[in-house]
């Protein structure tokens, strides 16, 4: 390459004609985050932020899991008095909110933040300062929610916060406000990450990585990011109007003054259903990326898989009403939404059959990740089947809001997203830490999680058909649900034991696991072309891609492009479709201001729960932080 190298005006130092060691040394000086507290807080390295994001999300998974265990303790016996209704309502709300908003969505985006730049062969994510900001905002939202819960102001209206129950009259105090404002935090961080990912994927791919050579996981993150960008505004409107109703006394949801209680459900689920696919699509992307490695052959039906991802993304906006089948909607509408809800089984089926075909044609190696993927297919197909059942309006009228639905969505969320995520941790953790996880422990972990999961959630189908509604803090002995509930609670302990062992293995491996080397699995994608863990600059020289599986098709490793500046942060910008090199773009240096901007934003948002005037005076620090953030510092990036 490249045009810019031949640019006569360009006198800046580049990596051309320098020995590798010298290039590495200078790149390191340019890109690395020094080990001081200030630098740790101002870093914009996507790998460091991605790791933080993932670790924080897993902390929230543990917290949410502990809440689940608390609920199972209360439900193990009829009329138990371990947890009262007030606390129980907070617990199940916190469980749902934490798992959806603080674990599932952020962790998927975080894996994207960590992996996408590596998989597409660039040095950092687009808008890296925004990336840092999004992490701090997410952290602030999570802390807000959990501190509120700790001081007994945790939301108690369900993670869906249906009005009028979540409205001003029936939820006194600040509990529902905390929930609605926490949504704002996660919205902002998710939107920020999505914008970064879209820009990164479209404009920063390694030369030659045309659209049909992008790893499927990257495709999945692209579709997911678009889903976030289109779905989040709906919940933004919803949570803002809710908070206005509660704090300012507007009447969006007050039927007596022309508001409408059902409006909330439409807005919430217009976001809430795509949200499920925001969690699920990255997971299937991971599966599609891992299966070829363990089958030893390229994925079968790449085009079909990508099309299925896009189709799922589009269809996901047409199904939200199936959460509202019992609200008494017109018949015709219900039939339409039955058809659309069931039709999403088709792209899901396409993906499953393509995976099975890949496994069939290849030579599967039953390593821990593949074990979890098989567990995923086993479980997710089952969840898909119950999904087809609840898509039917009359059938749903019996099982809606019962434990049947609880079982269903844990099958699709744990089975469909958490299993692939655990597989992904086994698969990519060596890339992040440079050390392998234990294969033997992995089998035990899989056994415990798989058995514990099905023991916990399968009986819930039966409980639902036996008439046990969701979100009850207790039930009466005559109902005959006691035995199954006890079994479920005991199985939940097995599931928890599996996760405990998993986390132990993660820590053990990060400390003393066997060294992984650049490509321990003999995988075909670009992230395995660099060292494990990758250097701060990701790639010594930007790889040039000439096929969909560059590390397989090019036995000597991919050829590289040179010419990027090594004394300041520079990226290669390529064209959207063909990924032809277009320009060299400078990439921002570390900055503390995203942290301060996030702090100022957090103060504004939290204080506005207590006084509307916070929106006015709180805007000042935000403005200041943003001015400092964008203040020209005479650095080359300012010219860009």
């Amino acid at each position, binding site marked *: 390459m490249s045009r810019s190298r031949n640019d006569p005006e360009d006198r800046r130092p580049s990596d051309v004609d320098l020995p590798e060691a010298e290039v590495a040394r200078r790149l390191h000086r340019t890109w690395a985050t020094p080990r001081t507290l200030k630098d740790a807080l101002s870093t914009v390295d996507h790998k460091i932020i991605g790791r933080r994001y993932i670790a924080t999300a897993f902390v929230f998974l543990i917290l949410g899991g502990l809440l689940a265990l608390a609920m199972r303790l209360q439900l193990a016996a009829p009329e138990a008095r371990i947890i009262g*209704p*007030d606390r129980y*309502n907070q617990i199940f709300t916190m469980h749902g909110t934490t798992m959806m908003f603080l674990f599932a969505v952020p962790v998927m985006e975080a894996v994207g933040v960590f992996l996408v730049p590596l998989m597409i062969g660039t040095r950092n994510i687009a808008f890296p300062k925004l990336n840092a900001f999004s992490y701090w905002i997410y952290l602030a939202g999570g802390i807000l929610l959990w501190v509120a819960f700790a001081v007994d102001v945790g939301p108690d209206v369900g993670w869906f916060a*249906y009005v*009028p*129950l979540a409205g001003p*009259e*029936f939820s006194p105090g600040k509990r529902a406000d905390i929930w609605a404002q926490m949504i704002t935090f996660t919205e902002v961080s998710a939107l920020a990450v999505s914008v970064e990912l879209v820009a990164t994927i479209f404009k920063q791919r390694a030369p030659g990585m045309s659209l049909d050579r992008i790893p499927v996981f990257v495709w999945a993150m692209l579709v997911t990011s678009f889903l976030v960008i289109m779905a989040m505004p709906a919940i933004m409107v919803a949570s803002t109007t809710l908070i206005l109703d509660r704090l300012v006394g507007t009447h969006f949801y007050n*039927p007596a003054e022309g508001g409408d209680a*059902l409006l909330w459900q439409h807005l919430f689920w217009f976001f809430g259903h795509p949200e499920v696919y925001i969690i699920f699509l990255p997971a299937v992307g991971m599966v599609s990326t891992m299966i070829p490695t363990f089958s030893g052959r390229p994925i*079968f*039906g790449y085009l*079909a898989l990508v099309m299925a991802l896009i189709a799922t993304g589009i269809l996901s906006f047409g199904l939200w009403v199936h959460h509202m089948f*019992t*609200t*008494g909607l017109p018949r015709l509408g219900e*039939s339409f939404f*039955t058809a659309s809800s*069931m039709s999403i*089984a*088709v792209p899901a*089926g*396409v993906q*499953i*059959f*393509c995976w*099975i*075909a890949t*496994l*069939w*044609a290849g030579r*599967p190696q039953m390593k821990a990740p593949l074990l979890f993927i*098989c567990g995923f297919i*086993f479980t997710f*197909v089952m969840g898909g*089947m119950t999904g*087809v*059942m609840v*898509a*039917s*309006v*009359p*059938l749903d*009228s*019996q*099982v*809606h*809001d*019962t434990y049947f639905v609880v079982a269903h969505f844990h099958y699709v969320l744990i089975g469909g997203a958490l299993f692939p995520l655990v597989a992904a941790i086994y698969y990519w953790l060596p890339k992040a830490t440079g050390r392998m996880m234990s294969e033997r422990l992995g089998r035990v972990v899989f056994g415990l999680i798989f058995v514990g999961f099905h023991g916990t959630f399968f009986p819930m189908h*039966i409980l639902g*058909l*036996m*008439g046990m*509604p*969701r*979100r*009850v803090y207790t039930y009466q002995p*005559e*109902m*005959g649900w006691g035995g199954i509930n006890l079994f479920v609670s005991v199985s939940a302990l097995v599931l928890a034991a599996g996760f405990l062992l998993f986390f132990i293995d993660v820590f053990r491996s990060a400390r003393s696991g066997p060294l992984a080397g650049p490509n321990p699995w003999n995988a075909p994608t670009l992230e395995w072309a660099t060292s494990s863990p990758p250097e701060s600059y990701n790639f010594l020289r930007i790889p040039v891609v000439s096929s969909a599986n560059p590390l397989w098709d090019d036995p000597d490793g991919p050829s590289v492009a040179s010419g990027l500046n090594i004394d300041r942060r520079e990226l290669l910008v390529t064209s959207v479709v063909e990924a032809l090199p277009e320009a060299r773009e400078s990439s921002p240096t570390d900055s503390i201001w995203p942290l301060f901007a996030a702090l100022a934003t957090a103060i504004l948002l939290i204080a506005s729960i207590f006084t509307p005037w916070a929106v006015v005076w709180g805007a000042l620090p935000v403005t200041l932080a943003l001015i400092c953030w964008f203040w020209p510092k005479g650095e080359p990036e300012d010219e860009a």
Partner: protein
Amino acid sequence: MTAPTRHRPAPPARLFLLAPLVLSNCSGVQSALDTAATAAGHLRLLILSFTLICGVVWLLVMVMLGWALLRRRPAATDAGTQRRLTIAVSVCVAATVVIVGGLTTLSFLATRTLGSGEGEIEVVAVGQQWWWQFLYPAGGFQTVNELHIPVGRTVRIRLESPDVIHSFWVPSLSGKVDMIPGRTNALTLKAERPGLYRGQCAEFCGLQHSHMAFTVIAEDAATYARWMVEQARPARTPDTSHPDTSEAEAGRAVFLVKPCAACHTVRGTRAVGTTGPDLTHVGSRRTIAAGLLDTTRGTLAAWTADPQTLKPGTTMPLVPLTSDELRQVSAYLESLK
């Protein structure tokens, strides 16, 4: 709760495939598979057929997965593999489309069969935090947490809510429909057999969502007619001449002086409050506090004395009563047959 368990033999051969599932479900107090109405019967059949079809599909996919993982592999892949795989995957996807289409049609037909026709009898059901009010416009009275319907006749229930969203659900008779403030939904019930059918709120509605149950009592036409006449009468005044009832009479006086009357109605007295349940015939109802306790003089006294401990957060406030007053009020309430 007094709703008794009714046992019905599982239908024989037809569903033997699902035997384990069916058997585990057929005898619930509140089971969707233990049906006593045509509508619920259709739904049961729908649930079972979906389960069967989906189960078979799942099994097929698992067999494919197992085969893909474990098959004996030839030394070299021949050139036609890719093409054969493409065909196989296409066939599978086509089959998915057909199955999904079939299930959609099945669901649509079920919707058509269920219908929501006119009712011969109209009842208004109002879900409140956390109890059920049933208004019988034809009789000019209301009852609480207990819905009486005649067997074999279609009852149209208008569903309303003055506070938050609730959901009306009697699994043995029909699917659920939400009660949404500001809207009116409707549901038709037609019980095939006399009996007690338990229902419960299915939409999370706050603190005591767990204790918001009611009973549907399906009875033959004559019993139902007698019940209608009984309910339409105002509350009977305790007979003061009788020693047993003098306590009840004293309780009536306490009831009217104390704040009870501000929220509760007892027809035939000055108590006309509408915030809480109508107590005109509270002594004749099977349960109090929305299915929480059987109606006895003891439970009535316990409930009046300390509702917040029995059902934390309930909207019935604690009322200061002396022990004598409490005894008298509970005697009075029990006498309201």
